[in-house]
């Protein structure tokens, strides 16, 4: 048990796969956990609740000014109206990128993340280096993601210390004036809604799609 305070922490930890297996069989045997419920949780985040939800929210905000106003003033009402609600999205705030302001989201104390619109957080978001640097050296973080901001753009970092969950509304890429919301969704990467990247440009999307179809 890694949490045992008297434990010598130089001893190699036991295999987590074995520990999880033993724990699940114990809790199932005691009638405390239904393995099918675990399957249902996994299926939810593998197939239903993920960053495509957030992309739909962003694409709609780009194409529907009234929805965008509501999203920025009352994110819960706007997001819930699209059918996205629940665990780790109970209290939402959306922050908008502009020509002069770029937003970046982190949780320095653990891994708070807007599950309802982005699903489960990626490993890097939960990693110690990201949590350490995002608040103190956000420019370096963006550089590591290959993200360059327009000169003069200032960065706002949102540290998720309460149950409020933050979603970045990225800027709509140029050259997409005649795109429908559905087409725009493909430009909205998960990373752009955390703020470590910008939304994809049409040219970047083309390169990605060419790579995936080859």
């Amino acid at each position: 048990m890694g949490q045992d305070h008297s434990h010598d922490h130089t001893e190699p930890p036991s295999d987590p796969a074995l520990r999880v297996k033993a724990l699940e069989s114990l809790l199932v045997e005691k009638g405390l956990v239904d393995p099918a419920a675990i399957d249902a949780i996994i299926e939810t985040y593998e197939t239903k609740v993920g960053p495509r939800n957030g992309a739909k929210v962003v694409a709609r905000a780009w194409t529907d000014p009234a929805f965008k106003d509501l999203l920025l003033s009352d994110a819960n009402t706007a997001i819930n109206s699209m059918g996205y609600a629940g665990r780790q999205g109970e209290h939402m705030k959306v922050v908008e990128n502009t020509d002069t302001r770029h937003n970046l989201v982190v949780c320095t104390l653990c891994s708070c993340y807007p599950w309802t619109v982005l699903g489960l957080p990626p490993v890097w978001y939960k990693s110690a280096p990201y949590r350490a640097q995002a608040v103190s050296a956000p420019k370096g973080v963006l550089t590591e993601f290959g993200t360059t901001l327009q000169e003069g753009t200032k960065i706002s970092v949102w540290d998720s210390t309460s149950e409020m969950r933050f979603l970045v509304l990225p800027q709509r890429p140029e050259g997409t004036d005649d795109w429908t919301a559905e087409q725009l969704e493909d430009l909205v990467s998960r990373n752009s809604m955390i703020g470590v990247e910008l939304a994809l440009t049409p040219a970047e999307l083309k390169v990605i799609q060419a790579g995936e179809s080859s």
Partner: protein
Amino acid sequence: MNGAHDLGGMHGLGPINPEPEREEPLFHAEWEKRALGLTLTAGWLGQWNIDVSRHARERQHPVTYLSNSYYENWLAGLETLLVEKGVVTLEELEQGKALEPAPESLTSKCAPASAVTNILSSGGPCDHPTDDPQEFKIGDKVRVIQFNPTGHTRAPRYVRGHVGTVCDYHGSFILPDENSKGNKIGQHLYNVSFDGDTLWGPGNDSTIHVDLWQSYLEKA
């Protein structure tokens, strides 16, 4: 507590090395899926809340906390809570075998698969009323008090003692410091913005926003 989890500003942790978004799998091992599911389903037994759960992870030895992967920290926290709350015994945990039956008061809370969608989509709202007067308003200068609580808190070390500006008021929310001890009380919650150079020194022109409860703050 000033634990290894309070990472804002720490140096020497190396690069982030993010996996490209389109290549990263949702889980990196089968056991991670089960660890996620076990953490959620065991939580639904109602023996602890989110802050008790966070505190169980963050009071691991710093070396352990930083060496573990994130799901390993979840697993360690879950094992700790199950034993501390008497849901399972240490012997049962070590053997992976039930030595005594669980009481009906617990087994009755076992969530079936059919309940999962509803539980996940309902979530657990954390706003909670208070009779306290709201001491600060948007635009006020506030200083985060200098304190070093040994229990759970959501005031990161890097803002303590520093002056910021109230830029949003979220309402009254459950205070984590007390919730982690099982006391559910509401308190006003603010978003406070800090200038980068205030927190990190000259040359940092970013703004850092932190959600802070009223008792963490004083008028500056």
